[in-house]
């Protein structure tokens, strides 16, 4: 039982990262009816921007030393001679890295937002009024443009970036079993769930949220009702790119920074289909389910099979419910 819970915990943590990635895909789809195949590569750019600001830029000669490593006397006194990986040492190291983590996050959010606005303005907006199919295909083209650009700008080697939270093992007992999780993963889980919940609240209770939902329902009527539809599109891309930047930073700190992040993001599309393209709640459930299934398969069947099992489950769900767990079935009236 203890082991089962341990792998459940691992699965929920993986699922929360999937949910954060899926969030951006649903946000764009809800507003524009476009499935953004390039979302994984937006996340890749977010990860590289986080690396650029938190590692490359923070070490630049013109940057003050405290950005690279903040080491005030009180922090030194706090750390004392704590052993590496002890909670104390991990917290001290994280506080010392905090200026560059914040610089990395702010930089990644801003740079990814600019990138998304450029994409929306130059690629998506000219296609407004055209078929959704044309817009979807243009996002497929974007994958290669973004991947190629990332290869030209950054080296493709795996790099290390600072984690968003301090990383030490938290051990606890449940059902007479010793369990653990990393504090860094717990921080990632909290960040992902907070972002998810905030966005759902914004969509439900704010004017922008209502505008997005109205546009998703019917663009022409939304225009007629005075909603600035192009701005709604921009907002959706902004939401996707900024949540993608956070997802990128989390993925890079969890697994190392490499071009594989783009493909990982692309694979999350299957999770979104399972949950329902236009349902945040459905996608959250699907993400957790895939995370847990993947974790259980890794435990019982090993890595080779673990890659396949969750996606077989996705396929089964789509066969039974083509619109996913909570996706809206579209009824076309003639």
């Amino acid at each position, binding site marked *: 039982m203890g082991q089962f819970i341990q792998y459940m915990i691992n699965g929920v943590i993986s699922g929360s990262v999937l949910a954060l990635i899926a969030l951006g895909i649903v946000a764009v789809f809800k507003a524009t009816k476009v499935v953004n195949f390039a979302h994984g590569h937006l996340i890749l750019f977010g990860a590289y921007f986080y690396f650029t600001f938190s590692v490359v830029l923070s070490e630049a000669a013109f940057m003050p030393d405290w950005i690279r490593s903040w080491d005030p006397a009180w922090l030194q006194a706090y750390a004392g001679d704590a052993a590496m990986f002890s909670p104390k040492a991990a917290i001290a190291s994280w506080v010392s890295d905090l200026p560059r983590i914040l610089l990395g996050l702010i930089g990644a959010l801003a740079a990814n937002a600019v990138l998304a606005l450029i994409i929306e303005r130059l690629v998506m907006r000219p296609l407004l009024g055209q078929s959704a199919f044309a817009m979807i295909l243009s996002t497929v083209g974007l994958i290669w443009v973004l991947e190629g650009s990332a290869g030209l700008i950054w080296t493709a080697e795996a790099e290390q970036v600072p984690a968003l939270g301090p990383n030490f093992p938290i051990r606890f007992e449940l059902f007479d079993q010793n369990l653990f999780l990393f504090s860094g993963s717990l921080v990632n889980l909290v960040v992902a769930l907070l972002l998810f919940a905030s966005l759902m609240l914004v969509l439900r209770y704010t004017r922008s949220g209502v505008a997005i939902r109205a546009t998703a329902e019917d663009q022409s009527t939304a225009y007629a009702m005075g909603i600035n539809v192009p701005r709604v599109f921009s907002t959706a891309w902004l939401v996707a790119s900024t949540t993608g930047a956070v997802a990128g930073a989390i993925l890079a700190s969890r697994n190392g920074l*490499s*071009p594989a992040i783009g493909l990982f993001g692309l694979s999350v599309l299957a999770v979104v289909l399972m949950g329902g393209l236009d349902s945040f709640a459905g996608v959250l459930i699907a993400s957790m389910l895939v995370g847990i299934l993947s974790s259980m398969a890794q435990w019982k069947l090993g890595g080779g099979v673990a890659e396949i099992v969750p996606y077989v489950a996705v396929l089964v769900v789509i066969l039974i419910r083509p619109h996913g767990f909570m996706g809206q079935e579209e009824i076309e009236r003639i």
Partner: protein
Amino acid sequence: MALNRRTLLKTGAALTAASMAPSIVRAESPHWRVAASLPMTGPFATAGQLVAPAFSEFEQQVNDNGGIGGRPIRIEVEDSGYIPRNALANFQRAQAGGDLHFYYGDSTGFMELVGPTLTGDNAVMMGSTSFASALSDPANRPYQFMAGPTYEDQFEILLRDIADKGGKTVAFVYSDTEFGRDPIEHGRRVAEELGIEVVLEEVTRAEGADIENHVTKLAQANPEYTILQGYVTGVWPQLIGGARAFGLTTQFMGTFWGMEKIIADRVTEQAGPFLDGYQGVMPYRYFYDQEDAPFYRELGEFKRSVNPGFSGYVTAWELEGRLCLELWKLCMERVIEADKEVTPDNLMAELGAIRNWDSGGFFGEPVNVVNNKIGQGRVYRYDAESRLYNPVSDWIQV
């Protein structure tokens, strides 16, 4: 002008002579031609860019010393992006450009792809970045060789070292790639022979592995030693970091591509000294270990002479490329000295005849080339404070 029989014959002869001229010129090429594919872009761009100087410097050094058999060499390097079909296209272009005396491939994928085509006039002596066990097969791969031990050999060296130190349990953690799976079956067999129990075989993604789950499984299996295979710059540092943070005491070990000092130094710089104590097999001396390595000292002096900003360190990746070239040069010299024709068969025959060769310091002991490989290596340990890999075993022959 009227076209009579005589004019037609003259014109035909002239055209034939003109069309033959390039091949005559090629046959009398004043250079020995070497070509290479390197991943200058793509996932292993850093590795490719670090290996590249081995080729330009080798060309300059050899030509400064009068070439090989009095004839200079010419080296052409092209980018493959680590895509086997690109490397194959590079190779075919190089072949179409005239006599090719040596080719250096960029990956196992390329070597597998091109291997079966190396027959008859297409045959070329070929080294590469790969230590894939399948390439050590003179019967089926008569023109391909590696400048070191196969991955199976490297696993065996590690397992023997574990047995020597009294180790009883081991875990194999490897990427779900050909590179990762290569030595696993052999590793199982050798472990059994040595009385070591394989308590876990864990397959991971090649990049972006799920660290929590892998650490959980390692914690449950609790091996004394964990051998990592099939990674270059990613996954292994995160896995070791996760396991250390969890408090696991298992001794992590790696093979050639996971043993580069600049990667360990970069991880230490960016994420802390958690790689301290990491061990692995390295076929060559590290470049800073120059006491018994006259070749390294000479190479260092040359590098300083052409580049005053030379850091003083040459990566093991570059050394591997350079060693392939040195082995080719040795074979060329022996073929020319024996007054034989320079053909791929003669070159490979000389390679297979290498016994007790003093490599000038690459290897700790004189080496033999058996089955188109050199089965020697040593176990090193990383010290995060000095940022050096230090030897913890003697040179082990397999």
